[in-house]
């Protein structure tokens, strides 16, 4: 890694960037226009959020707070836990632990910085991780392996049984940095009593590990508060999901990213409730005014991202959807699988409910919720077993009236690349066109955005969709 990059604490650098960006809209219109001239490399992403108005600005605030929490953790006597986007932060906040999610931080860096996360990704390889390991972790992880970020105190991973490359990156981090490690391990089935019981036992063991590491007992009153907040968040998310089903939808393509990024960082936290309220209110107003979410004012096509979105610089992917008039009905990351969502009716046993009556009920709630976060719900076990990836995508395609399904991931995703071709064939049999993107969602060097865009255009043209 270049010495110049090592000069800056990564968390401070990103936190400061986001914090400055969040202050941007405080100026007058003229001041903002002038200020953009001073940030040519950041303008693309900042403008996207500023133009969204209150939800966009608040979203930048929240992300800045996420970094600030990491930066302040040790001074406040809190431990920092490196964890995955597949793991709910609810339990960490209830135990006064600051979660640090590699994938979220990689996505932020990849979108914000013109040079992407390349230096950090490559650093992981310099110290021995294979270049074929998933870029979602390799990005931010590189900074921590290079000791350029805050010191991680423990590693909690919940992808064994779901994603080897993800789990492997966390194991590598724990061993390389010599930190305590816990794994939540997922069986190949979901919804049956045996796997439900396994989720709870595994989660109980994790709490034991966290209690041992922090020297504090889980505060169930605090957990109850977080779960009440989560109740409110799930209800608002359900409203947003309802609006996402409308044709045209009043939800802009970028909203789905904000919904899931907020959940990964702040589920159960009042700040996330506020973000969802802002998103819902703005969407409701658009709906009442009969205005589609797309800036062009016309919805030409509706896509379902069956895996993840594309996160490289300036949010090019979301801008592309806007330019082409394509509504984004979400990805594997968007859905929360709360039991009252319409799609849950079609996926029996795959969803969770919230019960805060007793400590045991709360524990069951969080364990089952955690087991339904992205990847750990959808891509465990055979993709064509009842309620799994194929069923889920077909159910969503019907409910959200999509015209096509697009797969996007990273070359590191051995799990989905091991099944996406048969999956695509099964989906196509149902009359839904599928496009498999060959890029890396976090690394433009694998395929340039320009090439990715051309391939998307080619797909839409050849299949007669646009």
């Amino acid at each position: 890694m270049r010495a110049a990059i090592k000069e800056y604490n990564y968390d401070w650098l990103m936190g400061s960037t986001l914090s400055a960006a969040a202050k941007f809209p405080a100026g007058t219109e003229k001041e903002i226009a002038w200020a953009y001239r001073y940030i040519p490399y950041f303008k693309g992403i900042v403008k996207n959020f500023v133009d969204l108005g209150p939800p966009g600005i608040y979203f930048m605030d929240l992300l800045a707070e996420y970094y600030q929490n990491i930066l302040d953790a040790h001074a406040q006597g809190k431990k920092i836990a490196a964890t995955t986007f597949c793991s709910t932060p609810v339990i960490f906040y209830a135990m006064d632990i600051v979660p640090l999610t590699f994938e979220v931080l990689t996505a932020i860096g990849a979108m914000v910085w013109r040079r992407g996360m390349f230096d950090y990704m490559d650093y992981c390889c310099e110290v021995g991780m294979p270049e074929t390991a998933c870029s979602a972790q390799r990005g931010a992880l590189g900074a921590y392996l290079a000791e350029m970020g805050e010191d991680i105190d423990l590693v909690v991973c919940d992808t064994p049984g779901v994603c080897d490359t993800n789990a492997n990156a966390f194991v590598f981090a724990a061993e390389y940095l010599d930190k305590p490690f816990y794994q939540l391990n997922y069986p190949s089935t979901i919804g049956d009593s045996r796997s439900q019981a396994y989720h709870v036992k595994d989660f109980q063991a994790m709490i034991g590990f966290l209690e041992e590491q922090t020297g504090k007992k889980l505060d169930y009153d605090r957990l109850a508060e977080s779960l009440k907040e989560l109740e409110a968040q799930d209800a608002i998310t359900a409203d947003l999901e309802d609006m996402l089903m409308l044709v045209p939808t009043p939800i802009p393509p970028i909203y789905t990213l904000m919904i899931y990024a907020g959940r990964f960082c702040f589920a159960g936290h009042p700040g996330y409730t506020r973000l969802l309220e802002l998103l819902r209110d703005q969407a409701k107003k658009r709906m009442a005014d009969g205005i589609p979410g797309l800036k062009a004012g016309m919805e030409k096509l509706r896509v379902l991202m069956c895996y993840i979105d594309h996160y490289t610089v300036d949010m090019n992917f979301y801008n592309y959807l806007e330019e082409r008039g394509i509504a984004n009905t979400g990805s594997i990351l968007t859905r929360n699988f709360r039991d009252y969502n319409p799609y849950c009716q079609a996926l029996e046993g795959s969803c969770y409910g919230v019960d805060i009556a007793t400590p045991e009920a709360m524990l069951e709630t969080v364990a089952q919720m955690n087991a339904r976060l992205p990847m750990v719900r959808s891509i465990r076990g055979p993709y064509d077993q009842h309620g799994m990836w194929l069923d889920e995508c077909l159910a969503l395609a019907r409910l959200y009236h999509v015209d096509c399904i697009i797969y996007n991931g990273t070359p590191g995703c051995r799990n989905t690349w091991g099944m996406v071709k048969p999956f695509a064939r099964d989906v196509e049999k149902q009359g839904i066109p599928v496009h498999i993107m060959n890029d890396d969602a976090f690394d433009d060097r694998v395929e340039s955005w320009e090439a990715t865009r051309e391939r998307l255009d080619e797909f839409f043209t050849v299949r007669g969709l646009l």
Partner: protein
Amino acid sequence: MQLFHDVANHIECQPLNDWRAKNRPVVGYTCSQVPAEIFYAAGILPMRLRGIETDGMDIGDAYYGPFICSFPKCLLQLAGKGAFKFVDGVVITPGCDAMRRLDECWRKAGEDYQGIIPDFFYYFDVPHKAEGHGMEWFVEEIEYLIAEIEDHFSVEITDAKLREAIAEYNKGRRLLDEIEAIRSAEGGTVSGTDMFAATIAGTVMPRALYNAQLEQWLKSLKEQPPAENARKRIMLIGSITDDVDLFRLIEFGTDAVVVSENLCFGVRSEGRPVDEAGNPIGALAEHYLGESACPRMYGRHKQRLAVLQEKIEQSKIDGVIMQNIRFCDLHGAENALFEKALEAQGIPCLRLEREYGPMIDKGRLKLRINAFLERLGRRRQYARSN
């Protein structure tokens, strides 16, 4: 020994054909965490599926994506070509993401290639942890597997039969252990190539026949005088391989001998004998999950490192060759951690990335191995001169 090499180098081999000639069933399995004793107890020949003798990748590439290890692709290729049509059943496990997707890819290929899916096609869910509920899950998985075998093949697998099977398998384990002791001792007369062929053969041959062959081999080894002591002593570790040629590449025409290995098809998978006294299912679970040395068992890196370090010391290893198949991140990352720890202790290491298959990058590998052996040679010279 010739029989071991014949079995190790061909999917269809004489012992397998002899077994089938008597209309006895054969079940293929994909991972060292499947307890072979269960099949033995049912009168079924368990056969570890191998990707050797692949002559193309068109079928493997058609169903799997591009960023997948070539080992499961070779298995799928062979399945699609009908190379495993003789098996009466297949058990697939989530050894890694690519291997567990063999379940779907094989089933989907079966829609296009007639007759490649045996009637008994079973997914065996192995957890990634052996503690508490992980072990309970695995015990249940073994019980379910037994029930399915009993139902499908109309057999009864009693505790007594399981104990008998465990005893027979343990006999082989003890013999291998004795041979391994000769191999790893100074003046050992066992080549890595022969030892690896023998352990691969153990995943295919009927156990009684295998044990008899091991006994003969051990007897002949005991009668041999010690070998010259000057060869460089190599340990080979990393991704799955069932290709004896990888050992040959290190040993043929060089002054090196692979005196130890830590490989999925190697002697490590035999491990210590299974407990013969207690509950047989619990004992099998403890052996196949509790003692697993695979990096898929997350959080056990330090234990695995300790095992390596012990072996390195016991076998007086001069250098460790660490290989991983491209896209095998589990071994790729673990090799890096091993290299960091072992080099810090002054143990020379070579990391190699390769493709699985009929040694397609033999020249490149040979060049790097030879360079590594030169390094070891200079090290010896330096040690002697100081």
